[in-house]
């Protein structure tokens, strides 16, 4: 990449906006995913009794089952949220930066 291109992009306000927004967003989502997964693992390790409780009085299904399914769903939903935001906001910002510097 040419040095003048680097300084042009670097000074572009939209680039700074993109950088800040994407970095924060990525790390927040990473944190949420880790919190969900490790939260689940800690429940498994320390609070088996919670996971063993039936979801209703007349049901055999334990709380652990829907919770596990929810962890799987949350992984998909979080990737979906990222894709949606990146396809919109981030790609739009990138397009504008590229249009201005090229």
């Amino acid at each position, binding site marked *: 990449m040419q040095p003048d*291109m680097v300084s042009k992009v670097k000074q572009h306000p939209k680039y700074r906006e993109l*950088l800040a927004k994407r970095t924060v967003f990525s790390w927040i989502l990473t944190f949420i995913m880790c919190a969900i997964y490790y939260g689940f*693992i800690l429940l*498994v390790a320390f609070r088996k009794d919670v*996971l063993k409780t039936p979801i209703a009085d007349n049901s055999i*299904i334990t709380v652990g089952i829907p919770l596990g399914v929810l962890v799987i769903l949350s*992984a998909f939903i979080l990737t979906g949220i990222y894709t949606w935001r990146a396809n919109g906001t981030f790609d739009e910002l990138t397009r504008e930066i590229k249009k201005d510097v090229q």
Partner: protein
Amino acid sequence: MRNITLFGLISALLLSVSTVFGAGGDLGQVQKQGVNLSAILMFLVFVGGTLGITYWAAKRTKTAKDFYTAGGGITGFQNGLAIAGDFMSAASFLGFSAMVYNKGYDGLIFSISGLVGWPIVMFLMAEQLRNLGKYTFADVVTYRLEPTPIRSMAACGSLVTVLLYLIAQMVGAGQLIQLLFGLEYWIAVVLVGVLMILYVTFGGMLATTWVQITKAVLLLSGATFMAFMVMYKYGFSFEALFTQATVVHKDKLAILAPGGLVSDPLSTISMGLGWMFGTAGLPHILMRFFTVSDAKEARKSVLYATGFIGYFYLLIFVIGFGAIVMVSTNPEYLADAAKGTLKGGGNMPAVHLAHAVGGDIFLGFISAVAFATILAVVSGLTLAGATSVSHDLYANVFRRGRANEADEMKVSKYATFALGILAIILGIQFEKQNVGFMVFLAFNVAASANFPVLLLSVYWSKLTTRGAFIGGFVGLISAVALMIIGPTIWEETLGFPKGSALIQYKYPTIFSMTLGFVAIWFFSITDKSARAQVDKDAFEAQNIRCQTGIGAEGAVSH
């Protein structure tokens, strides 16, 4: 010639280790089954079809870019399916369903751990890889660091990961095929090796991708049918299915809640780290991000992959419970009714369930799909390994980036051939060894060596060549060493008395990954060399390309 000595070294090491290791198979005790004709027929159809794909792909594979990345023209959806295919190995299909069959809920915990790495790959890696790399993840880490040492280091990490994974798959393949098709072990291993060499040498990434897609569709369809038939039998009521399962399973109600899998939280978290971040450091998976045209398609790849893998794991849960109610109660599938052991060994619940819900023809189908699964996964691994040899070691280290494309292509094909032969030899060598730990070891190396270097090279402006080089090797060596002195290898495989292992952690990722990160950090911040300044100064330009894709590798149209 560096590559050849490296291979010699690794194979000699593995061979010497193999003679020391104690006995016991990955799939438990296996007995050879009678020749299964419908399975063989269906498998021949699959092989015929995939060889057709390879012929078609070979005509379209002319340049190095075609060979390594299918010209960068795979769509996000196709790539997502192929990634899912890479991940849905025979081990996860048969192994996870067997775990649910035996332990119930604990099998679900394993599945979840396998899935949650994907969102992380999405948030931190996918687009960045696409924007910075060309053919391998070493391209990304050498974007601003000194190419020769860093590429050698990255190639070591890649090859160790790929070889470990490959051995586990080959041994699994031999045992499984022996089981399902009634072929001799060595014939099965040679067959897998030869087919994978054909796919990769002639069809490159394009053939590998389409073989993977074909198999992913077959596996997802087969698993969907099985889960559907199980639910159909129970009127689509989980209540009814679970109730019946708790009646017939020896552990009764306990199968609906976590059991003994997770006794020690530190181990569990460490295991989670290994699966989670290992996913983000597997060379054959990372390589898939270079097959799409841009960051947007890379994103879509992960979204679809996460969806398919998540769906697959939910099916596996139903299939495991289906096997509890339909397989464990049927004497036809039991080797010993009193002990409840299955015909063919511990990994057979899904296979027997296939017979229970769909008869001989569907059993043949599922057996053929299981074989196809192994074939597709080993092809992806071999391609990643060969690329590491030809693109990283030969073209960029040995020839210092001055190799011409034709030579590089030639080396990649020799490397594929050599890796294929090596995989066959090691597959046969390791027949009687317990290779179950090798998959986690591969993940552990990926999480402790590849992932920290890759992550910090993308995000940390103060990373230097010295830090990445030393830290990468610290991660690699500690990942392997801590596994060797841990209970899995020390006691179970090397046969030292129980309790004699130097550390009592089966999953040492929390230590080895931390060591890797700390070493990279420490040897970077204390690096005052001229090269360190070059590395740091180049971050800005790298970050711009990483964030915006300006200057990134494009796609070629066919």
